[in-house]
């Protein structure tokens, strides 16, 4: 049981990292991004390919993964520069889907739906399964702490202030002489880099990556993590990771509580729990995901 909890702690760290990345893009800069899993996948595949096919050392591969994800972040930011809210949401969704399609179809590069297996992990053959989990939990949460600290500094810096200004009102920021596009691109790159790093760690922990592992649902988990933990705060992102794993894994034990249900019904309940949790969280935060100006029709008298 302890080993299981350790393993879950590792996954929670991955979600915390992704929530941190999202926090930069969404929480700080106010840019909608439903394509998170795409950057996560790029980081995972880059690191996996470099270590498995080219025998690159892990730390170097991780750096490359971060760079690759950041580069894609820059590309996406440039492509979508003029898009707003809802358009951005749909386009970023499409981006993640394209990444998944490339991963599934370009067999020469990614092994297709077969995935890439036998990815090395730090001291993997040497440690016991428990030992490996402990190392990775430390690695994962250590990264969360360091990155949260760095991003916290970034948020309080002038860079962070400009991002918040852009989030509130782009027009004003532009008039004030800030090169809005440059800031947005940088924010996207930073966020994507963190997501890519999470992906690299994931690949080496699991020893295996496949396109099926990068579904749009993961993006929803990350959104849930960020909103549950508290958008805008780095601490909240970390907490959110724990909450998401607690929900996805805790709901597993429903089967013991409701034995009359068929497995497919238990499964649909578990998936529904995530949706319900997200709705509950949105309700508890009456200001919503972002403290933004309400642009919808306020139809209440």
């Amino acid at each position: 049981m302890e080993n299981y909890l350790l393993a879950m702690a590792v996954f929670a760290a991955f979600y915390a990292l992704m929530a941190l990345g999202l926090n930069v893009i969404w929480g700080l800069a106010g840019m909608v991004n439903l394509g998170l899993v795409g950057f996560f996948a790029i980081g995972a595949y880059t690191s996996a390919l470099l270590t498995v096919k080219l025998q690159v050392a892990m730390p170097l591969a991780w750096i490359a993964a971060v760079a690759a994800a950041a580069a894609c972040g820059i590309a996406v930011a440039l492509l979508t520069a003029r898009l707003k809210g809802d358009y951005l949401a749909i386009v970023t969704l499409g981006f993640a889907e394209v990444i998944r399609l490339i991963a599934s179809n370009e067999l020469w590069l990614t092994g297709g739906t077969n995935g890439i297996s036998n990815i090395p992990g730090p001291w993997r053959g040497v440690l016991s399964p428990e030992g490996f989990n402990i190392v990775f939990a430390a690695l994962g949460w250590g990264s969360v702490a360091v990155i949260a600290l760095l991003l916290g500094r970034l948020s309080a810096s002038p860079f962070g202030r400009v991002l918040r200004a852009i989030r509130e009102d782009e027009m004003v920021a532009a008039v004030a002489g800030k090169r809005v596009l440059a800031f947005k691109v940088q924010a996207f790159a930073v966020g994507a880099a963190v997501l890519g790093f999470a992906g690299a760690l994931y690949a080496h922990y699991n020893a295996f990556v496949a396109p099926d592992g990068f579904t749009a649902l993961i993006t929803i988990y990350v959104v849930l993590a960020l909103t549950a933990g508290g958008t805008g705060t780095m601490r909240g992102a970390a907490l959110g990771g724990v909450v998401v794993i607690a929900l996805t894994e805790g709901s597993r034990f429903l089967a013991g509580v409701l034995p009359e249900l068929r497995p497919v019904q238990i499964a649909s309940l578990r998936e529904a729990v995530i949706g319900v949790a997200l709705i509950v969280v949105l309700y508890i935060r009456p200001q919503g995901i972002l403290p933004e100006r309400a642009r919808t029709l306020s139809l209440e008298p």
Partner: protein
Amino acid sequence: MFLTRRTALLGALAAPAMAGSLVRIARAQDTGPIRVGALTPQTGAGGAYGPGMVKTIRTVVDDVNGAGGIGGRKIELSSEDTETNPDAAVRAARKLIDVDRVAAISGTWASAVTTAVAPLAWENERMLFTVSGADSITKLPHKGYIIRTQPNTYLQGGRIGQYIAADGAKRVFALSAQTPFAIDSYNRLSEILKAGGSSAVGDVIYDAQKTTFRSEIDQALKAKPDALFLNGYLPDVTIILRELYRAGYDGKKYTFGYAAGQKLLDSVPAEVTEGLIAFSPSPNVGSPAYARVQQILGAEPDPYSAQTYDHMSLIALAIAKAGSATGPAIHDNVRAVGDPSGVLVTSAVDGLKALAAGKAIDYEGASGPCKFTPIGDIEGCKFRFEAAEKGKFKLLTIS
């Protein structure tokens, strides 16, 4: 505020669930109940197959427990959903291994799922019984902890190619769902068809998630085939058959039994499926195990449920033979229960009785003879070929 209201609320929702499980810290594996796990696709792309697979596993468990268990110990089955997603499946497998402490896991359908779960199995020394077909699976460094009851691509492609060539098809076009073995199986098919005097005239690989395949079918029909090999799964093959009918195609059609079971025949008009030939790995004619699975499912068994029936039976018998319910014990004894010089048994209950009487046994199951190579593949199996006639399957041959 570190612990805000919302996170506390969510924690409170999840906590009771987790607390309940903390109480059940299972310990020794040689006394107390025997723990096994079912890991099947209940949702996601393989969701059509999971429920049947769990049903046969559970029935074997109930049968064995009803007959007194194994050496007086009852079997406890834990069941988890792979969600046809390697990420979710890995977490589910970890729960089965670390929390439920199962000695063996049965199920894992999608090849990507099996490839992801396999290292957990061999690193923790638990047996993994899978129904995945990709050749690469048994080539992993699994130290004998994988048993695969599904004929691999090489074996299947070979047999099917022989049959199609013998059936008189001269120009075979393949419509394959995007899977790890789509290309491998086409290559193997071409090879065998050529040897049999036939030919493979083309292959189109499609995304099984789509809902329309008109362009793919146009492409296929342009090559003027007299036979089509439908290498996909139930949802997409159903659509393709309908669209082939609309397109006026009247030639031969071949597919796998897992794609075209009774469910498919029931969901489209008979004209659409008329003449479709489906093949599945099969035990011999009149196999009592097969009949039992038919009984359990109330219909023509799909190949996967037949296999999981055998998985669970093999697990029970191996444990009985070993006198111990650990992963390594099953690992060491799973081939021993298929001793050709032993008494022929076709159910776990019968096998347990024979073992208790000190006899050697030869288990032959619902999916085939259940004899395995050192790397975990089946040594060979027969195939059943069935043709759809007026909305029902008719057995043509088992060979």
